[in-house]
């Protein structure tokens, strides 16, 4: 990046990556038709949910969780190119160290998604969480990190440490799936900033299960494009169905041979680090 770009934000006033030539986006300036309400940030509630439902180490205190998140935020706020990310929706999370040597898809199926189901079910007993995959596939042995998404950095740390961080669900709203990862090429390298994937996003929903519940507006479909399924027609995502929460492996094809650009789909960015 040259000096000009180093001093100019590449995110707009809503924390959305400003599109540039080559990106397939629904609108240059997002209509913001699909909305998430900024949740009030309750570190203790998020930690409690994460300890109850996803096995986060019970010895981790709220102070440690909160101070680790604040530190990540403070450091990013000093970066003029990236700091606008915090003008958009931002949600802290804590993700337990992987207890599994299994592959990514199997860990999602067996550990991460059931944790989301348990947390969502406990908070909203009259609603449902469900997961479905279009096509013949499964997740086990069929999910990998997406080239260019930098998500392998998250996976690497996930295997060794408890991770804390911030999720920016609307940073890439209205970008198509390929553009969500392609734009990573022009984000200056920043430690712990990756295209959101499955484990961080699942951790967000364990901690904040009501994130997509919005009485007034339709929320975006949250793509987890840091990961990709072996079936390249599919994209993985969390989405609302009314007030229900769903995980889908759904088709990203508009017509045979042509992928779609949806106003409702949103790629996320994740800022993370090991807990202090």
């Amino acid at each position, binding site marked *: 990046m040259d000096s000009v770009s180093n001093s100019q934000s590449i995110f707009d006033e809503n924390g959305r990556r400003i599109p540039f030539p080559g990106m397939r986006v629904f609108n240059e300036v997002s209509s913001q038709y699909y909305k998430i309400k900024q949740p009030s940030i309750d570190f203790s509630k998020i930690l409690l949910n994460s300890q109850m439902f996803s096995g986060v180490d019970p010895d981790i205190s709220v102070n440690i969780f909160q101070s680790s998140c604040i530190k990540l935020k403070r450091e990013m706020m000093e970066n003029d190119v990236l700091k606008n990310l915090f003008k958009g929706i931002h949600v802290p999370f804590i993700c337990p160290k992987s207890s599994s040597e299994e592959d990514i898809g199997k860990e999602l199926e067996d550990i991460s998604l059931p944790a989301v*189901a348990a947390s969502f079910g406990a908070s909203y007993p009259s609603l449902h969480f*469900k997961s*479905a995959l279009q096509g013949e596939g*499964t997740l086990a042995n069929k999910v990998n990190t997406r080239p260019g998404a930098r998500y392998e950095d998250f996976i690497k740390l996930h295997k060794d440490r408890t991770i804390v961080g911030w999720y920016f669900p609307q940073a890439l709203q209205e970008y198509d799936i390929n553009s969500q990862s392609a734009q990573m*090429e*022009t984000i200056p390298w920043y430690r712990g900033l990756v295209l959101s994937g499955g484990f961080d996003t699942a951790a967000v929903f364990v901690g904040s299960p009501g994130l997509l519940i919005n009485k007034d507006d339709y929320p975006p479909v949250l793509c987890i494009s840091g990961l990709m399924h072996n079936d390249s027609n599919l994209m993985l995502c969390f989405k609302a169905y009314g007030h229900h929460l769903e995980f889908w492996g759904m*088709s990203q094809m*508009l*017509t045979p041979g042509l992928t779609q650009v949806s106003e409702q789909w949103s790629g996320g960015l994740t800022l993370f680090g090991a807990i202090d």
Partner: protein
Amino acid sequence: MWKEIKMKDNSSQSQNLLLTGLEKKKRTDQSISRPRVHEKIQKFYRDMSSGVISPILRLKINRSLCNFHCEHCCEEPYMGRDLKKKTGAIDPRAQMSIKDYAELSRQADEYGIFRFVLTGGEAILDKNIEELILALDPMKHLIILDTNGWTFDEKAARWFAGLGGYKVQISLDSYVEKDHDSFRKKPGSYKRVMTAIKAAKEEGLELLLSTCIIKDRVFSKEFEDFCEFCKTEDIPLYVTLVKPVGTARGQDEWVCTKEDVDHLKILEDKYNIFTHMTASYGQPGKCITVKGINTVNHDGEIIPCPYMDLSIGNVTSMPLSHIMDRGMKDRWLGPYRDECIIGENYDFIKLHNNSVAEHLAKSPLLPVPYEDGFAMFGKEKIKSNRIDILTLSPNQKKRI
């Protein structure tokens, strides 16, 4: 095919994603009774993740002739009686002939479509309906009949089943008899619906009830009682949202809010009710314009949703596959979105209604042709991948 992801701690509600025993049985039956339909369904399941679609084609026949004058009817402006009142003459455009419908059936079959809905007005009033059903070919397509139930008695049910008809969709707009009759402006119509239900069941026809909701109806005791009735009778209830079009144009207070729609989605877990946006055929719930349903007007104009008045092309002058492709590539109609754009998205409703109003100032004939409607506001095209970032040089990337 599609499947629920196996999870250790999944909720019981997710089981509705799996095929029920009944559904599996229906498909097995289909493979025997209508092998071509079965073959198309299997192919659709296999290919849908690659972007293949197989929408319902809803045929508005017989100039939408109807024996009812319902309060919320979106079809009134298409009816001969309405045009005659306004202009003194019936629709002067060439109407789809039996030969045209046979050609449509051929193209639909080739495209992988397997469902036709016959509607109007009241489709059963069409004197040529038998010839039409045979032209569409009930062995190649599932033929579904919309009816208000007024004349759908035991004899009609036997006739329809005998022709190879598959399903009857009977509309009932209130579970309270006097309210339904008053809404329909037809005393006795509630009792006729009950007769029609019995007749359809006795002939072994597939059956569903449809009902139109206005704002807040989903929260009423009447609606809950209606759902209970359908549960007891084991009849799926198809819920449509009133749209601010047709006789309801300008009735914005009737338009459902997200709160109504969200409540419906909660009721879906309790009752066998669904909307056009309910997850089905292994796909997530979403707006189904073009990809899930299209209406074919009497003159061959294809409308990408039952409640819109804008065409995406005329099937008598353009191949069906081209029209579907054009529709899918429209930025409002093709890409994924959760909400019903004509029922909930005020930006689209405004665009739609303005376009219709402009057209009606020039002509009383709906729908608005493609060139005057979607083609105009479709001009703001989605940015396509004109430059692939992966092909940019390092210097170009720097400038970005």
